[in-house]
Each structure stands twice: as structure tokens, then as C-alpha cells.
């Protein structure tokens, strides 16, 4: 594999992923601001951003930490939000599985929604790509997305400390989640899962230690999966 071909795949990845900077940058900014609002200093905010690099779960952890939920519940809920990445990891095996251990370890760190989605689309569209090209493309995607995620959340953390308390930024957390979830409700099973999730959260809110959250999530997942089976069965009947 020539260096030129690798370089061009890398740049191609950066280019194809660049529109997502428009999503990542404001979201990172918002995380920084909200983390500052919750009382995290710059080091703590950046520690979380760099070690976790997964927006939704970072917001989940923040929300539960501010509610003084038990540490185990905070970790379990925030990890649950990231479980979808096991699917990404599995989907990348046929494409990147032959890379060296170190390279795969690095690729795992940079596995975020945007880089995964863009890379897998490319791999499926162009099966003739070599392993080196696929890797270069993948890291190109990460190279444009991740620095913006780090940088913007740092800026947000610094700027956030200058924003006075009376801007109701407490409510930025739920608003962010609503904004994240609403576009996901594209199919009936997703809608069913979300509804069961809300209803269970309300019915079970008497439970201690935020246990309602984990139980509501389990019921909602099962409901989504069942709804999917039902929808598929109906399609077959027609």
C-alpha cells in the first residue's frame, strides 16, 4: 500500500465526516457549559470528555450525579447508554478485524457514533478497499470529529463559568436529551420503547436509589424488541 493512497483515504475520511462537526461542536460546547454548571472544574470536565468520549452517556452521568444517585446506578445507567457500541464493534470486525492488536485497540477508543456511521457506509459502498485504506479512512473520520469534541467541551467549560446562574441552565440537560431522543423515534418499536420508558419512570418513581431508571429501561427495551417482532410478523402476513 502506497503512502499516497493511505493519505488520500485518510483525507477522504476527514472530508466525509466534516459535516458532523456542525453537530459535535455545539454539543461539546453545551456539555462543557452544563458540566461547569453542575460544579465540575475544567480538569474534571476534560477528564470525562477525553476518557469517555460519548456525549449521551456523559450527560447521563452528569444528570444522575447532580441528583445524588448512588455511584453504581450512575455508572450502570451511563454504561447502558453506550451498549449500542457493542453493535458497532461487532459490525467493524469484518472490515478492521485483521488489523494488528494495537491498531484495533486504538480504533476502539475512537469509535463514536459519527465515525462509525460514516466509515461503515463507505466500507459497504466500496468493498474493494484494502485494510490499510479502510483504517486510514476510519482514523480520518476520527481525526476530524474528536478534536472538535475535546476542544469545544473545553471552551464550554471555560465560558460556562462566566454564565450567571439565572439562565436556567439546569434545564439544558433534559432539553439536550429530548433533542437527542426525538429524532430517534423514527419507527413504531422505537416509539413504543420510549413510551414504556416514560410510563415506567412515572409509575416506579417511588423506588429508592434511582432503581426505577434501570427497571424502566429493561421494560422499555423488552417492549421495543417485542414491538419489532410484531411489526415484522405483520409484514410477513401481508
Amino acid at each position: 500500500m502506497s503512502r499516497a493512497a493511505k493519505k488520500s483515504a485518510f483525507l477522504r475520511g476527514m472530508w466525509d465526516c466534516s459535516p458532523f462537526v456542525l453537530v459535535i461542536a455545539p454539543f461539546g460546547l453545551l456539555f462543557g457549559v452544563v458540566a461547569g454548571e453542575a460544579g465540575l472544574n475544567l480538569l474534571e470536565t476534560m477528564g470525562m470528555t477525553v476518557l469517555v468520549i460519548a456525549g449521551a452517556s456523559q450527560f447521563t452521568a452528569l444528570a444522575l450525579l447532580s441528583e445524588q444517585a448512588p455511584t453504581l446506578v450512575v455508572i450502570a445507567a451511563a454504561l447502558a447508554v453506550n451498549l449500542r457500541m457493542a453493535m458497532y464493534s461487532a459490525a467493524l470486525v469484518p472490515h478492521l478485524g485483521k488489523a494488528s492488536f494495537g491498531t484495533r485497540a486504538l480504533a476502539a477508543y475512537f469509535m463514536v457514533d459519527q465515525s462509525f456511521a460514516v466509515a461503515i457506509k463507505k466500507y459497504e459502498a466500496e468493498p474493494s478497499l484494502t485494510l490499510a485504506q479502510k483504517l486510514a479512512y476510519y482514523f480520518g473520520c476520527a481525526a476530524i470529529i474528536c478534536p472538535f469534541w475535546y476542544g469545544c467541551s473545553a471552551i464550554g467549560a471555560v465560558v460556562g463559568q462566566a454564565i450567571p446562574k439565572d439562565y436556567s441552565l439546569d434545564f439544558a440537560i433534559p432539553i439536550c436529551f429530548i433533542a437527542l431522543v426525538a429524532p430517534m423515534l423514527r419507527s413504531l418499536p422505537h416509539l413504543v420503547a420510549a413510551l414504556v420508558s416514560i410510563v415506567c419512570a412515572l409509575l416506579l418513581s417511588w423506588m429508592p436509589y434511582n432503581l426505577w431508571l434501570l427497571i424502566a429501561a429493561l421494560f422499555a427495551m423488552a417492549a421495543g424488541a417485542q414491538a419489532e417482532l410484531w411489526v415484522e410478523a405483520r409484514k410477513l402476513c401481508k
Partner: protein
Amino acid sequence: MQIDTTTLWIVIVSLGLGTYLIRFSFLGIVGDREIPEWVQRHLRYVAVAVLPALITPLVIWPPATGGEPDPARLVAALVAFAVGVRFSSVIGAVVAGMSTLYLMQYLLP
């Protein structure tokens, strides 16, 4: 309420490690084995199962108002939801929701 520093770092490190292991799982360890169909079917709904349950109490009983339902926040949440569903735009929904909140707080005494 102040978050305890030790707790915070325990959460940051465990969440970082745990998330990394999830990302590394198949690519690094399990390899080519398929995730069973029924597990995949459940995994598809994890995000929509966890997040709505997490938000619901924050919207209906916001800590900032001492747990009293707040019309401004309820309307802001609905607007953010409507914009998110209609335009599939995360940032659009955040902007619409927060603007509505400020507008409502300005209009309501």
C-alpha cells in the same frame, strides 16, 4: 447540590474504562462471532429505553423549582420534542427548547 469529588472521579474512570471495553469487545476480543439476533434486537432500543425514563422526572419535577411542576419548563420540553421529531435536528431542538424556556420565563410572571 455539590457533587463529591471522589465519587465524580470514580464515575469518570469506571465509565471511561467500561465504555472502552464495550467499544473494544468484538473488535478486540470476541472477533468474528455474531451477536445473537435477540440480543441485537434489544440493543437497538437501549438508548430510547434509558433516556426518556431519565428525562421524565427532570421535566415534570425539576430540581431547580424544588420539584414543583413548572409550566415554562414543560412547554419548553414539548417544543424541543416537537422540533426534534419534525426536523431531526439535535441542535435545532436544543435552541428551540432553551429559547422557549427564556421566552416563557419572560412572559410568565
